[in-house]
């Protein structure tokens, strides 16, 4: 009897203890996490404007990975990096280059192989040290160093001696020459008029060597640059807090005192947070399911900013897969797609495209009409090509809303001209890998995966996605189209310093590509940005063609 009692007592004790543990964990839970109350306090405290400061809060679904400008390469971290860093060159409100950390535009030799930059004097990194030409040399050399694993190294391999440095045959890049404390010269192995654009990319954001060496791999979480904001706090998976850099070299900016980036917020929840006034802007697009409601609500009039995106969303037609080896079949596809319906399905987040270059891109051909929507003519072309009864083929699409819906629309369009389209919806990594494998996929819908420019120059829409050099395994030329004649022309154009003549060459190139019907350009993207009416700024501050968001110019009422 006593034995039983003791056992029962033990059992009770255990049950009580485990329950108590549960209660304690549940109640005192917050103390477990490293985020703790500090982050919370700083956000709400600033939001309340206790110190008279203006705070802007923006929410993203995806986590921000790094603020190391040599590493980060997506649309979440590029604008965030721009807060902390500057490059030698920058852009005005549109797509024209202007001096940034350079005091003037570079001196360029007539053959566009020698670029000399003069630095602005007295600009200081956020650690107080002055920026010199050595820092610029270090920055570009670091991007080229294979150990850095920079996705942007390809932009700078045209500098003399870059390949030897990459291959380990030289300890420095011979074409990068520091002439004095404030002057640096780049010698290129072949003419390249786009080098100025490359020196305005995030990869060319100037970093201080001592901070990179101090933090090593972790520099991306402890970034130090010259930019308008200083990173104050970073709680991975939750939020980043930036504060105004009082010593920023550009007068009058930034206007905000603090920027808070929340991460891990589902867009549908972010929309609720915005309506509730918890955040000032959504970093992601408004969910398609909510779009109609928001756009039709008069209360939202001042909370929506629309801006064109420098992108073309297209169907890549694999020119090496039958029957798309026949240009008539590719042209038929171009006439069979009802693009207006796609814009409707997108809730107006785009405009119909008739050519490869988007309207904001220099070289865009205003006079070009493109292929009309004409299913009858398309049928006729298929007949001429020897497919009077059509054929069966496959398209790969991203499995994220609204892409599958759009692909179903293509399916209906093609059914009208007798083509039976099988749709494969897959996650991004698989579509990208399949599309980059020769002969694997007949058609690829680029929606959600599309090419968004690196810099506003038509070459960025040719070499990396339609040039022979990118029609290789793992490349981005999903049409697998390689035309030696066009390629030679494009190579020549990269070295042409006469801008007008150069753009004329690109017009010819892209018309020829449309004659060859290697893509069906479907639409040009449009940002529909949701933000609070208190957040003010120009359209180009909410959606700049190059930087996306320009935080330094945004202000709060």
């Amino acid at each position, binding site marked *: 009897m006593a034995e039983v009692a003791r*056992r029962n007592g*033990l*059992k009770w004790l*255990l*049950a009580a203890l485990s329950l108590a*543990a*549960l*209660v304690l964990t*549940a*109640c005192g*839970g*917050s103390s*477990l*996490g490293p*985020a703790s*109350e500090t982050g919370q306090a700083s956000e709400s405290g600033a939001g309340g404007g206790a110190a008279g400061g203006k705070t802007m809060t923006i929410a993203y679904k*995806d*986590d921000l*990975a790094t603020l190391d400008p040599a*590493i980060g*390469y997506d649309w979440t971290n590029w604008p965030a990096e721009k807060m902390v860093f500057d490059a030698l060159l920058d852009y005005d409100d549109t797509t024209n280059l202007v001096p940034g950390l350079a005091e003037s535009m570079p001196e360029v030799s007539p053959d566009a192989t020698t670029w000399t930059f003069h630095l602005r004097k007295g600009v200081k990194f956020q650690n107080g040290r002055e920026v010199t030409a050595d820092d610029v040399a270090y920055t570009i050399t670091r991007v080229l160093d*294979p150990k850095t*694993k920079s*996705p*942007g*190294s*390809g932009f700078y*391999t045209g500098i003399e001696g870059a390949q030897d440095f*990459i291959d380990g045959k030289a300890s420095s890049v011979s074409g990068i020459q520091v002439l004095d404390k404030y002057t640096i010269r780049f010698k290129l192995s072949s003419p390249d008029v786009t080098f100025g654009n490359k020196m305005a990319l995030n990869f060319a954001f100037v970093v201080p060597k001592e901070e990179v060496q101090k933090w090593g*791999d*972790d520099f991306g*979480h402890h970034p130090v640059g010259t930019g308008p904001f200083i990173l104050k706090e970073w709680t*991975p*998976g*939750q939020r980043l807090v930036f504060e105004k850099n009082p010593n920023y070299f550009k007068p009058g900016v930034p206007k905000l005192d603090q920027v808070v980036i*929340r991460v*891990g*917020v*589902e867009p*549908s*929840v972010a929309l*609720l*947070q915005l309506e*509730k006034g918890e955040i000032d802007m959504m970093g992601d697009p408004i969910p398609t399911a909510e779009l109609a409601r928001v756009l039709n609500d008069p209360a939202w009039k001042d909370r929506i900013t629309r801006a064109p995106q420098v992108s073309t969303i297209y169907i890549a037609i694999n020119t090496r897969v039958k029957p798309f080896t026949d240009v008539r079949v590719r042209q038929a596809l171009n006439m069979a797609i009802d693009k207006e319906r796609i814009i409707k399905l997108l809730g107006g987040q785009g405009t119909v495209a008739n050519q490869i270059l988007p309207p904001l891109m220099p070289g865009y051909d205003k006079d070009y009409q493109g292929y009309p929507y004409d299913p009858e003519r398309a049928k006729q072309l298929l007949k001429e090509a020897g497919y009077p009864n059509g054929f069966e083929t496959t398209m790969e699409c991203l499995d994220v809303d609204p892409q599958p819906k759009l692909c179903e629309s293509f399916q209906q369009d093609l059914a009208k001209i007798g083509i039976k389209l099988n749709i494969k919806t897959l996650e*991004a*990594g*698989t579509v*990208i*890998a*399949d599309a*980059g494998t020769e002969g694997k996929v007949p058609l690829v819908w680029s929606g959600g995966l599309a*090419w*968004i420019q*690196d810099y506003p120059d038509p070459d960025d829409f040719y070499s*990396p996605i339609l040039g022979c*050099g*990118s029609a*290789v395994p*793992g490349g*981005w030329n999903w049409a697998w189209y390689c035309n030696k004649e066009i390629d030679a022309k494009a190579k020549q154009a990269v070295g042409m310093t006469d801008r007008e003549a150069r753009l004329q060459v690109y017009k010819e190139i892209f018309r020829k590509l449309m004659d060859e019907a290697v893509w069906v350009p479907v639409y040009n993207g449009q940002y529909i940005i949701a933000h609070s009416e208190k957040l003010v700024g120009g359209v180009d501050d909410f959606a700049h063609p190059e930087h996306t968001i320009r935080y330094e110019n945004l202000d709060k009422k």
Partner: protein
Amino acid sequence: MATYLVRRLLMALTVIAGISVVTFAMIYFLPTDPARMYAGPNASVEAVARIRHQMGLDQPLWVQYGRYVERVLQGDLGYSYKLQMPVTQAILSRLPYTLELIFAAIFVELALGVPLGVLAALRKNTWVDGLSTLAALVGVSSPPFWLGLLFLYVFAFKLGWFPLGGAGGLSHLILPALTAGLGGVGWYARMARSSTLNVLDADYVRTARAKGLPGWIVVVRHVVRNALNPIVTMAGQDIPWFVGGVVVVEMVFGWPGIGRMAVEAILMDDVPLIMGTVTFTAVLVVLSSILVDVVQALLDPRIRLNA
């Protein structure tokens, strides 16, 4: 007991090693290219090739796996491509949040499920019983993603009682815990009901009643405490289940746990982070199932753990 434990631990090691081999091979044979996913769409083919080489992804499978094992044995789970930090650090910084959510969810299941079940048993075949069955059914059949959004809309957006997602104090925890836990309330209620019914028929309860003890004392002292045994086991088994089960809840509420991180890792083809989270979760599941067996044996003298 000691022999039993040693044997179970050895088996656990085999299971974990097996899982790591299978996961590694699966990632290797996927058509996706981790170097391309790391570098982004606009990186040049040559830049991607250089990165692939630096990451050692151009080596044969067995070399890559060998290097991985070598590192893991030295306690290094690698460096996440996507998060740009050591995998161990990433996991440890997120683990407390996931555990917090799991324990809170189990607390919700117990606090709501057990009283509901006991009440249903005591009022068997009345409207109370019917209501509890209905509540259980609703809880089980509500998808967490939908339920989470509904809670956020009603209690955070409309009523403003709770914050709209994120992690922080207790107020941040309540809605996600309810979302994760409500689905299980039904199971606990059914379990508590049947186990209470079993106990109600037991001789010692009849004896207690015959002694003339008041009804509520019989229920608290004799019925509930004996009916709890299977419930404790169930709660233990819930921990490994929830490691996967809270993923959706973490996504909806922006809860910075391991689940959300693992999903992002898989989408980004972040090999070290996928390996790290999968292996770590495997360890967690295996260890907690051993723990449940041991606790069960301690609680119930009829269970013997044989080596």
